[in-house]
């Protein structure tokens, strides 16, 4: 029989308040195999660990169980503690009597009873533990950044500056993201392009950065340190090696299409660069609108191109590249305002969104920076802003705050007043939230110096009368209805996750919340990590963020990625699946279910009744296996076992529970 030690932790009063720790330790003395059982105030503390190490040596323990908090918190601590005393770290089991007992039960007797049960199971399991060993795997010293908004650019620059090659991938054909559409940025009102484009250029020219625009991630195989990423490089129909970016093609192209970048307030051509400072600054053909690609007529761009760069035959290209770390920075989408029918959104042309206004204000935008209404080009005088459109609205499935709107509305009101001193902005709000350096001051100036009128209350209806927009709402501070005759209405549409964020999450194997924001591994302590080792989050894809937050998070993610890449090698998972070839029937179910493609079916030769014969059996690649356990439950024969969670160990736990 193995010699087992039991250590019951009080976690200060966290556990001890609802569990009789001394009693638990006392009862455990009688469990089969237990040669020592004791309790202590903080097992994870230095003296606690020293105590465990001494006990291991003194009592010649083969394994131990610590009854404490969640293994998610301290399993590594107690494994390392064992290793320091010369015990294989996998001879340790941690039983959770905090989250599973003291924190969820009020009754001390019951909590104690359950703790004893859990501990009995833990002891029964550890008796069956075997020493496990991990191997080392190489790290591919390259990183992929998905999404080239400000967050992606910053992450790529930081990783590249740390000395590692980075591929910066964006599905659009320029990097820059939303920030490129923004005119000026709060709270400093510096021009967005002026601070963004230098970074775009730096990324494009950085020797360690490979730009891969107009490309999408199709599949991700492998695991931390070695992700094999299948990338679709979409056909651009322009050979970038030959194109000089002269723009002759764009100028001559006869096909005009509403520009996505300009929020459809302006037009672009079918062969185009979305904006003058786009990076890369070479045009692509939009196959959905190109006359030649649609019906074979036209071909003008090819004729006018002086270098023969236009290539209608170009096809999508699939490549597979290996990366050690991945940073996801795919940003957000603006909430689709047409969900607010009562605001005439999507129907009344002069009810626009924040991003529309950004384009109208921008000097290189469709109106050259003059504020003109989309419907008739008239310069508006009374402008109404409605905040929290698609934010903090349970009815629209958006209970969360979009964080940037309060500030960008203040920014808009300020800028409008600067541009048009005779104009007046009315801002309907639920709350004004300005937690950020110099944000509150900015908001105060908007009210005091720029004459913006803040009205607390929700707007119930917006409709057109003549060329005016009637905004009807309620001033909840004064408790009376208000009606404003406006020339232009700006809905501060909230941030939505990317429409296909969930698909990307599944491709990457990371998790997302009910809305589609990617979830961090821990909201406080691991805000840029995901649950999938080697994949990190940056920017608004993780939740609504403004630029400073996005940049800060991007740098944090970059440090994590660079830290990973700086390791000479990684230790592979020790708790992996193992196939018992004697039992395996070679059905291959495990192979098809393995999410990490770690299983191959091999053929073995065996002697059977004096004859040699071949038989199929499953073979787990111990380096690739992540220990998820999917194969072990899929295996109908029970041939597959997860080391550290073998069927025998689990059965021993069930037995122990039944024996109480």
């Amino acid at each position, binding site marked *: 029989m193995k010699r087992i030690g039991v250590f019951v932790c009080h976690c200060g009063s966290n556990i001890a308040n609802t569990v009789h720790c001394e009693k638990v330790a006392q009862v455990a003395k009688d469990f089969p195999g237990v040669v020592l059982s004791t309790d202590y105030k903080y097992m994870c503390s230095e003296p606690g660990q020293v105590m465990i190490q001494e006990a291991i040596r003194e009592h010649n323990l083969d394994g131990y169980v610590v009854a404490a908090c969640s293994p998610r918190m301290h399993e590594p601590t107690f494994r390392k503690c064992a290793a320091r005393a010369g015990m294989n770290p996998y001879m340790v089991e941690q039983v959770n009597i905090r989250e599973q007992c003291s924190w969820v039960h009020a009754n001390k007797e019951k909590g104690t009873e359950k703790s004893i049960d859990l501990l009995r199971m833990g002891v029964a399991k550890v008796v069956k533990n075997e020493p496990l060993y991990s191997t080392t795997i190489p790290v591919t010293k390259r990183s992929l950044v998905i999404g080239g908004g400000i967050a992606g650019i910053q992450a790529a620059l930081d990783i590249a500056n740390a000395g590692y090659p980075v591929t910066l991938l964006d599905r659009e054909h320029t990097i820059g993201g939303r920030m490129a559409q923004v005119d000026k940025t709060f709270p400093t009102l510096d021009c967005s392009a002026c601070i963004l484009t230098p970074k775009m250029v730096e990324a494009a020219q950085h020797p360690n950065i490979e730009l891969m625009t107009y490309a999408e991630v199709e599949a991700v195989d492998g695991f931390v340190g070695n992700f094999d990423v299948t990338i679709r490089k979409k056909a651009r129909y322009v050979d970038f090696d030959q194109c000089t970016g002269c723009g002759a093609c764009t100028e001559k192209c006869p096909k005009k299409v509403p520009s996505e970048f300009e929020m459809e307030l302006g037009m672009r051509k079918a062969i185009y660069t979305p904006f003058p400072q786009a990076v890369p600054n070479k045009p692509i053909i939009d196959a959905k609108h190109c006359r030649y690609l649609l019906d074979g007529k036209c071909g003008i761009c090819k004729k006018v191109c002086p270098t023969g760069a236009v290539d209608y035959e170009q096809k999508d290209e699939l490549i597979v590249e290996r990366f050690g770390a991945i940073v996801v920075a795919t940003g957000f989408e603006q909430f689709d305002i047409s969900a607010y029918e009562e605001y005439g959104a999507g129907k009344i042309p002069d009810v626009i969104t924040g991003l529309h206004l950004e384009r109208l204000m921008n000097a290189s935008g469709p109106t050259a920076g003059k504020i003109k209404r989309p419907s008739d080009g008239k310069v508006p005088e009374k402008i109404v802003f409605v905040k929290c459109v698609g934010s903090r609205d349970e009815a629209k499935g958006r209970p969360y705050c979009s964080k940037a709107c309060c500030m960008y509305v203040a920014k808009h009101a300020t800028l409008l007043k600067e541009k048009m001193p005779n104009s007046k902005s009315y801002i309907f709000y639920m709350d004004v939230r300005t937690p950020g350096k110099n944000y509150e001051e900015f908001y105060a100036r908007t009210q005091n110096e720029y004459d913006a009128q803040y009205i607390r209350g929700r707007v119930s209806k917006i409709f057109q009368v003549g060329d005016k927009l009637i905004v009807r709402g309620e001033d909840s501070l004064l408790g009376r209805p208000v009606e404003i005759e406006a020339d232009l209405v700006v809905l501060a549409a909230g941030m939505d996750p990317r429409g296909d964020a969930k698909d990307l999450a599944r491709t990457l194997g990371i998790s997302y919340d009910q809305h589609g924001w990617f979830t961090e591994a821990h909201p406080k302590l691991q805000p840029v990590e995901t649950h999938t080792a080697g994949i990190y989050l940056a920017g608004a894809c993780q939740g609504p963020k403004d630029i400073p937050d996005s940049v800060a998070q991007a740098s944090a993610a970059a440090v994590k990625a660079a830290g990973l890449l700086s390791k000479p090698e990684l230790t592979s998972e020790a708790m992996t699946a193992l196939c018992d070839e004697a039992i395996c*029937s*070679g059905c291959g179910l495990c192979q098809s279910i393995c999410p990490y493609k770690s299983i191959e079916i091999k053929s073995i030769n065996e002697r059977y009744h004096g004859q040699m014969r071949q*038989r199929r059996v499953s073979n787990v690649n111990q380096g690739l296996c992540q220990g998820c356990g999917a194969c072990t439950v899929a295996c109908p024969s029970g041939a597959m076992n997860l080391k550290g969670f073998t069927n*025998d160990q689990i059965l*021993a736990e069930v037995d122990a529970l039944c024996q109480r």
Partner: protein
Amino acid sequence: MNQITKEMRDLARELLASGEVKGLIGWTKGSRWYLTPPLFITRPEEAEQLYFDQFAVNNLTGLLLDYRYGDDKIALFVKGCDSRGIVRLLQDHQIKREKVLVIGVPCMGMSDKKAVTDPRQPVELPLLDKCLECRYPNPVIADRLIGGALVSGEPSEPKGLTASEAAKRGVGSKQADRFAQVKAIEAMSADEKYAFWQAQHEKCLRCYACRNICPACNCRECIFESDKKGWVNKSATPTDNAFFAVTRAMHVAGRCVECGECERVCPMDIPIMALNRKVIQDINELFGESDAGTDLDGKMPLGLFKNDDPEEFM
């Protein structure tokens, strides 16, 4: 002698004489009028012993497991329901496609010999429940066809020489009731369910007939015969029988081809299909409707990791 039997013998003779197959599995007339048990032959002259009628109910596909590591090519006859067992074995990589020659036969519906009252007195017998509920009366896979049989990978009407007889006898007439028993049991209270199943499991002899006939029960070492201590007690106590019953159902989850043989061969009349169907119903609800063993290239719902698998528990 009926036409199908004649065609069976002719084809068997030809296949064995030419050496195309080394052995052939079919049915033969048994010692009583209501018995048509399996027959394994290797010589052309033995073909005369083959026989087919409304009692050739045994699904022969599981017998192929005896030859899974051999190099000999074996032929066997399959009715519609049986044929899904072939797909099962192929998908589970237990037999090699080139080592088996599948001969599809049309089916007139199999009679329920449990209704025999006088062993000496042949009478018209009712159809087996599984035939009333049958959705695949035509083979889903076959290399050769006799009796005008047709291959169909979809639920279909009986085809071939016996089509009108099958229709008259009511083959497939209770398809819609496939999950009726499951629904009835689901409607019970927890206590009633427990009492119901406990009464069933008390009867089980642990004869393993259900397992032995099953084409999905193709493990090399059945867990119920494993010498590993602690898994399951081999004695036929109600608790261990319950464990056996549920474990058996879970082991064929997503792979059971609904041939109904387990329930038919059970000497104690335990409603085994109720458990199988419950699992099938749940899988259908979770992963979309599918019929195991009807599409050789189809992926098994429980044998696949998909990005959009339901994960309500996470």
